[in-house]
């Protein structure tokens, strides 16, 4: 199923938070350029998956393996995973008062460049790129000078996450319920931003509760996560099926080895 062409290979992953096992034998394989949607009921472990992959403190892996571009992801520090190209767009982005967005982003970009053995980006060059990114996500340029997420509305925070993604140019983007709390206009802006970033060397995991986002970001695969494992996989049409029928019928079904990709 997995092979050396995969960007991300998750094998039989078990993980817990505060001694409670949330991920229970999860398998997933993602190739470069693919967009995978992960749907599922509340409490299925959707956000946990994002945190486990990005190495958040307090989330412990009990078994299984994860490889990102051939590297053992689970052995890496949180910051090294980011530098290896993993990006998590947060569902509830936190504020960092007094640290300007621009300062924060430049430090992030520079840390990642340094890890690749590249020189720090010049301030002028970075400002130029950041202004373009602002425009793409429909945020006023003045947001670059404001404290990270400080006093931002819910929608602004989400667009700010997207702006960070545009500037960091990751290989694997995990969008954790990026659509939650967005009105339809904001949703479109976010979706357009994501679509503009789709390319042969960038993959996405789109975690969402609703099918609505997937009308705008067309996934290659849709997986249903229930009780810590993937219980059904299919193409984009599965999302519509779920929208119509809910999750209940799947939760009873046994897990099948229908994984694709």
């Amino acid at each position, binding site marked *: 199923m997995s092979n050396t062409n995969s960007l991300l290979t998750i094998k039989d992953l078990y993980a817990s938070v505060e001694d409670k096992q949330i991920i229970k034998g999860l398998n997933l394989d993602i190739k470069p350029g693919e967009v995978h949607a992960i749907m599922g009921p509340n409490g299925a472990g959707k956000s946990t998956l994002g945190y486990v992959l*990005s*190495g*958040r*403190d*307090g989330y412990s892996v009990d078994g299984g393996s994860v490889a990102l571009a051939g590297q053992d992801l689970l052995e890496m*520090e*949180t*910051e090294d995973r*980011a*530098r290896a190209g993993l*990006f*998590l767009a*947060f569902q509830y*982005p*936190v504020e*960092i*008062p*007094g*640290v300007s967005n621009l*300062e*924060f*982003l430049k*430090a*992030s970009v520079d*840390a*990642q460049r340094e*890890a690749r053995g590249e020189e720090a980006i010049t301030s002028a060059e970075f400002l130029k790129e950041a202004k373009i990114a602002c425009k793409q996500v429909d945020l006023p340029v003045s947001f670059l000078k404001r*404290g*990270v997420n400080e006093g931002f509305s819910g929608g602004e925070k989400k667009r700010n996450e997207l702006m*960070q993604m545009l500037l*960091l140019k990751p290989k694997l983007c995990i969008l954790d319920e990026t659509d939650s709390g967005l009105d339809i206009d904001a949703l479109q802006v976010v979706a357009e931003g994501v679509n503009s970033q789709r390319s042969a060397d960038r993959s996405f995991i789109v975690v969402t509760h609703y099918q609505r986002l997937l009308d705008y970001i067309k996934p290659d695969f849709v997986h249903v996560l229930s009780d810590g494992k993937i219980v059904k996989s299919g193409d984009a049409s599965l999302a519509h099926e779920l929208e119509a029928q809910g999750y209940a019928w799947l939760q009873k079904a046994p897990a099948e080895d229908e994984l694709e990709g």
Partner: protein
Amino acid sequence: MTEQIDKALAREYEAGFVSDVESETFLPGLDEDVIRRISGMKNEPEWMLEWRLSAFREWLEMEEPDWAHVDYPKIDFQSISYYSAPKSMKDKPKSLDEVDPELLRTYEKLGIPLIEQQMLAGIAVDAVFDSVSVVTTFRDKLEEAGVIFCPISEAIQKYPELVKKYLGSVVPKKDNYFAALNCAVFTDGSFVYIPKGTRCPMELSTYFRINEQNTGQFERTLIIADEGSHVSYLEGCTAPQRDENQLHAAVVELVALDDAEIKYSTVQNWYPGDEDGKGGIFNFVTKRGICHTNAKISWTQVETGSSVTWKYPSCILKGDNSVGEFYSVALTRGRQQADTGTKMIHLGKNTRSTIISKGISAGKSNNSYRGLVRMNPGAKGARNFTQCDSLLIGDQCGAHTFPYIESRNPSAIIEHEATTSKVSDEQMFLCRQRGLDPEKAVSMIVNGFCKEVFKELPMEFAVEAGKLLEISLEGSVG
């Protein structure tokens, strides 16, 4: 995470080296004879000696204060040496060429080159080493503008009228225990006079270095800004890493006459002691300024060092429409204890004061803000705004706030805001998820927390202060 923070905080003190300089040091002990000898070393006039002796007699009658939220062993004042000077300074070098190269190297190592060509343009430095001023740079250039910037020991000889008039006028001899001791035994420090209507053409700065073992440093600074003048002054301080505690008891007096403005910034990085609290400087300092009509005094301090700090830079807003400001960042880690804040005494009409205090506690340290805002009956229409923010790193440190507010004029307006926050796991995770290592993440979060204060520092030093915090925090992340 706490473990990471502790690791990041447990870092070597970069200024902890000892200079190999042959010194002439008094034997430990304090009596009238010692004071006569200090006065004699400085070749002081009789009035100065009398002033010292009267302060000493007052001091003997006083009790060491114990109200601060700090805990330290009783100081044995007889075990301290009250005078130490490099021998090479005895013949009073006339120029930089004659100064002991080892002394110059010491300052260079600390990042303060005293060769004028190498210095940051636009900053004059007075370098004080133990009990004497080693060199004061750019004096000729300042003299052209009529600005006097010299060691206070020299001012006592050359400008006795100014010194007599203002020394002790803001901090009286018996103001407090440590101030009285300083009056008796002060050895050197800086003297500044800015003439009427003059804007000082350069930043002035004094760099204090304690080198000799078992000595105390008792410096005295007096800054007089005559009517309509303006000056910005910065002090920096470091000391070698030693297992014994050393006492630093300074007095700083600022006089801002009508329409004058004094901006006084401090970057304090005395040796803080080791992780277990062994060694380090006891920093018991009295700083106070008086503002006459329309005058302004602004204190900015970045305090990262000392094992115990006891310090309240204050403003007496005597003249109508005068302004006092206090911007402070105090970082404590390891077993450091800081009790610091300010006093704003509003006497005149429409006087205004602003207090922004940022306390950062890490490790097992204790960080207290103690501030007094007093509106006297005459302070009609006076205003104060106070903001005290505390940031906790880890779960074994303490942050305390002791605000005292006394209003005796019903038209005065006093506002006080206070917050306490932690460097949160969420913030750390966000930073690391974007590729920042934990140390960079903490220093960025802390720098953001301090931004309002850093922007008050002169440009060059705002960068320095940011770096100093970064160094002090290194190893504090886990």
